[in-house]
C-alpha cells in the first residue's frame, strides 16, 4: 500500500476537535447520536466514491462507522462482509509505524477496537453462537496480553483503556451466557470480574437480578445489601456513578425485592421515590407501570407508559417498554389494532433508524 502524503494539520493541534481525528468525524458522530444510521451508510459511501478519505486511519474509522451502522440496522451479513474486506486485524497495514511520515513517533495498532468487538458479536447475531463465543474468548486472551505488554512498558493510560475493554467484553460475555440460561457460567464470570477488582454497585446489582432470575431470592437480597453498603462506604464518583443514579439504583433494588414478595404497593412507593429524584429514570417508570398492573390498575399503567413516551421520547423509547404497552393494549381493548397502529405511526416519526418497530406486533 502506497504511503499517502501527510495532512497539512500542524502536529500540536491534532486533538483540538473531532475533525482533527478523522475527516468530518463531527458530522458522522452527530448522525450516530441521532440514530440516523442510514444516513451514515450514505455518507460513507459518498466519501469513498468521491475519494475524500486520504489517510489509512480515515478509511478505518469510516469502515468502523459503516460496520456499526449495518449492525445497528440488523443487516448483519452486510456488516460481516464489510469486515471481511479487511486483512487480518494484526496486519502491518494497520500499524502506525508502517507510515512514519503520517504518524511520526507513533507505533501500535490503528484498528479501532470496536471493530474487534463487533467482529466477535456478529456470528452470534447471525445464529452461529459457538463461533461468536470462540471469538470473544480469543479476544479476551488478546486483551489480557495487551494489558501485560502495556504494564511492562509502564504505559499507564493504555493499561487503563485496555482494562476498561476487558471489563466490557467480560460483561458482554455474561450477557450472552445469560441469554442462553447458562447461569453457572455467568456466576463464574462475575466472580472473575470481582476477583480482578472490577467490583462496582451496578455489577453487584446485576448479579442480584441474575440471582432473582434463577430464583435464589436470599442470594439476591444479599447482593442488594452489599450495594447499599457500598453506597454508605464510598463517594459515588469513585464508582463512576452520579449521586442521584446511585440512590435510584438502591431504591430500584429494594422495589424488586418487594415485587418478588408480591408487595406491589411498597414496590410502587420505591419507584415513585426514584421518579421524584430523576424524572428520566425509565427503568423505574416501566417497572412501576408493571406493578400497577399487578395491582389490577391497568388504566393507570397504560397512562404512565403513554405519558413517559410523550414527555421523554428519546429516553423512554425502548423496545421492552413498547412491548409492555402493547401487551397492555391487547388486554385493555378488544379492538386493539387501531390503538397499536396509532402508536406505531408515532414511533415511525420519532424513533431512530435502529429501533425495531416489529415489537408493536401490528
Amino acid at each position, binding site marked *: 500500500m502506497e504511503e499517502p502524503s501527510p495532512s497539512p494539520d500542524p502536529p500540536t493541534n491534532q486533538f*483540538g476537535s473531532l475533525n482533527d481525528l478523522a475527516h468530518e468525524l463531527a458530522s458522522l458522530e452527530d448522525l450516530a447520536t441521532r440514530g440516523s444510521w442510514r444516513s451514515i451508510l450514505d455518507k460513507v459511501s459518498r466519501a469513498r466514491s468521491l475519494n475524500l478519505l486520504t489517510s489509512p486511519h480515515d478509511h*478505518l474509522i469510516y469502515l468502523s462507522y459503516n460496520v456499526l451502522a449495518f449492525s445497528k440496522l440488523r443487516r448483519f451479513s452486510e456488516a460481516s462482509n464489510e469486515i471481511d474486506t479487511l486483512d487480518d486485524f494484526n496486519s502491518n497495514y494497520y500499524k502506525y509505524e508502517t507510515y512514519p511520515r503520517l504518524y511520526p513517533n507513533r507505533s501500535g495498532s490503528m484498528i*479501532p477496537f470496536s471493530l474487534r468487538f463487533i467482529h466477535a458479536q456478529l456470528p452470534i447475531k447471525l445464529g452461529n453462537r459457538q463461533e461468536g463465543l470462540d471469538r470473544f474468548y480469543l479476544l479476551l486472551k488478546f486483551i489480557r496480553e495487551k494489558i501485560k505488554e502495556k504494564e511492562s512498558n509502564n504505559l499507564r493510560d493504555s493499561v487503563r483503556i485496555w482494562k476498561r475493554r476487558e471489563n466490557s467484553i467480560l*460483561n458482554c460475555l455474561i450477557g450472552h451466557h445469560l441469554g442462553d440460561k447458562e447461569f453457572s457460567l455467568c*456466576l463464574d464470570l462475575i466472580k472473575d470480574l470481582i476477583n480482578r477488582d472490577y467490583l462496582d454497585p451496578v455489577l453487584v446489582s446485576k448479579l442480584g437480578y441474575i440471582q432473582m*432470575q434463577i430464583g435464589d431470592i436470599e*442470594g439476591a437480597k444479599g447482593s442488594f445489601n452489599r450495594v447499599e453498603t457500598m453506597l454508605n462506604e464510598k463517594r459515588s464518583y469513585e464508582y463512576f456513578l452520579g449521586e442521584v443514579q446511585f440512590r435510584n439504583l438502591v431504591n430500584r433494588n429494594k422495589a424488586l425485592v418487594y415485587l418478588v414478595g408480591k408487595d406491589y404497593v411498597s414496590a410502587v412507593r420505591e419507584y415513585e421515590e426514584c421518579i421524584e429524584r430523576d424524572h428520566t429514570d425509565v427503568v423505574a417508570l416501566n417497572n412501576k407501570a408493571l406493578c400497577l398492573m399487578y395491582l389490577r390498575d391497568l388504566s393507570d399503567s397504560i397512562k404512565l407508559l403513554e405519558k413517559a413516551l410523550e414527555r421523554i421520547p*428519546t429516553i423512554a423509547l425502548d423496545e421492552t417498554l413498547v412491548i409492555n404497552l402493547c401487551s397492555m393494549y391487547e388486554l385493555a381493548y378488544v379492538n386493539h389494532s387501531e390503538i397499536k397502529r396509532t402508536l406505531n405511526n408515532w414511533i415511525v416519526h420519532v424513533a431512530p433508524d435502529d429501533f425495531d418497530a416489529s415489537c408493536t406486533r401490528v
Partner: protein
Amino acid sequence: MSTAPQGTHSLAFRVMRLCKPSFPVDPPFRIDLADLFVGEDIFDDPLAAANLPPLLSTQLSKSMDSSDLTYGSRFILQHPSDAMGFSGLLLLPQSFGTIYLGETFCSYISINNNSNFEVRDIIIRAEIQTERQRILLLDTTKSPVESIRASGRYDFIVEHDVKELGAHTLVCTALYNDSDGERKYLPQFFKFVAANPLSVRTKEITYLEACIENHTKTNLYMDQVEFEPAPHWSATGLKAHELHPADNSSTVEVFKPPILIRSGGGIHNHLYQLKLASPESAQMKVEGTNILGKLQMTWRTNLGELGRLQTQQILGTPISRKEIELQILEIPSQINLDKSFSVHLNLTNHADRELGPFEVWLSQDSVHGKKNVMINGLQTMVLPQVGAFGSSDFHLNLIATKLGVQKISGITVSDTREKKTFDPLPDVEIFVESD
C-alpha cells in the same frame, strides 16, 4: 384458546396470565467513543494520552445530553455493564407458557364493554374446571357490578393453586342487562394444561437416595428439599462438602452457588441416612410394607415464582424373614484381566432347621447379556448342608474378560432339596487391570 359464542355481545372477556415478569437480556452493539474515533493503541502516544481524554469526555456529554433529544444512549457505552444488555427493565409475560403441578396459576381478567352503550347489573363468575372438580374463583352474585359504561372495563385478578394434572378450563361468565334491557349471558372459555414438573425416583438400603428429574423447560432453583420421615424413623441429609480453595474471601462472601436443576431432564440427587428412632421400634418391623416417609420439595423459577410438591409415602424394601443369607466377605484388591481371582463368600442359615445342600452359580440375566465376569471352572458350585443358625464360608473362582470397571452380577444360591432359589446378590463393581 378462548372460545366465545357468535352473536352481538356488548361485553367481552380479555385474559392475560400474570406469572412473574421477566428480565429480557440482549447484548447490544454499544461502544465506547475511544474505541471508534481512534486506533486502539493510540494511548501509547503520550501526546494522545494527554489530549484525547478531555476531547472525548466533552463529546460524551454532548452525545448523552437528554435535553438535546439525542439517542446517544442507544449506541454509546456509558458504564461497562451496559455491554451486558441486561438493564433491569421488566417485561410482562408474553405468552401463556406451560403451567406445572404445584405452581399457582394467576390471571388478569378484564371485561370490556366494546359497545356504545352502558350495560348494567353485571354478575361475573370465574371458575376453574378440571376432570375432577370445579373451583369457584370469583362470584359477584351477592353484589353485582352496577354498570360498565361504553368503552369501559371491569378488571379482576384470580389465583388458583394447581393441584391436578391435565386439562384445565378457566370459565368466565357474565350475566348482564344490555342497553335494550335484555338480560344476556356471556360464557368464555380459556383452556390450559397442567404438566408434571418433576419425577422422583428412590433407591433404598438403610440409606435413601432420591433422584429428582426436571421435566420443565426452565431451570429450577431448588429452594428446599426435605425428607419427612415416618414416625419410627429419623433422617439426616448427607451432603458432600464443596471445596473452593481458589476462592478469594471477597467472592465467598458475595454468594454461595445455588442448586439448579437443568431444564429438560436435568437431575439432582439427595442422600439421606435413615435410622430407627429407638431400639423398641425395631419390634415394629412387621412383615409387609415398610413406610419410610415423604419427600417435600419447594422450587423457584423466574423471579422467585414458587412451586411445591410432596411425594407419596416412600416405601422401603419389604421386610421378609430370609432363611438364607449370602454375603461377599472379601474381594481381592488387585484383579487382572484373564487371570482367575478368588472371592470369599459366606452363607448363613437363619432358620431353626438344617438347610441344603446348595448350589451357587452366576445367573444369566437377559438385561445384561454377555457377562464380562464369569466363574472360572465348573459353572455351578455345590455346597454341603448347613445346620440350624449355622454358617459356612466358601470361595468362588471368578475370571474377568474385559478391562475397566466391571460388575460381578447375579450370584445366586438355591436349596436343591427344598427346590428353592433365593434372590441373587446385588451387583458388585470391580476394577480390572491389565497385566
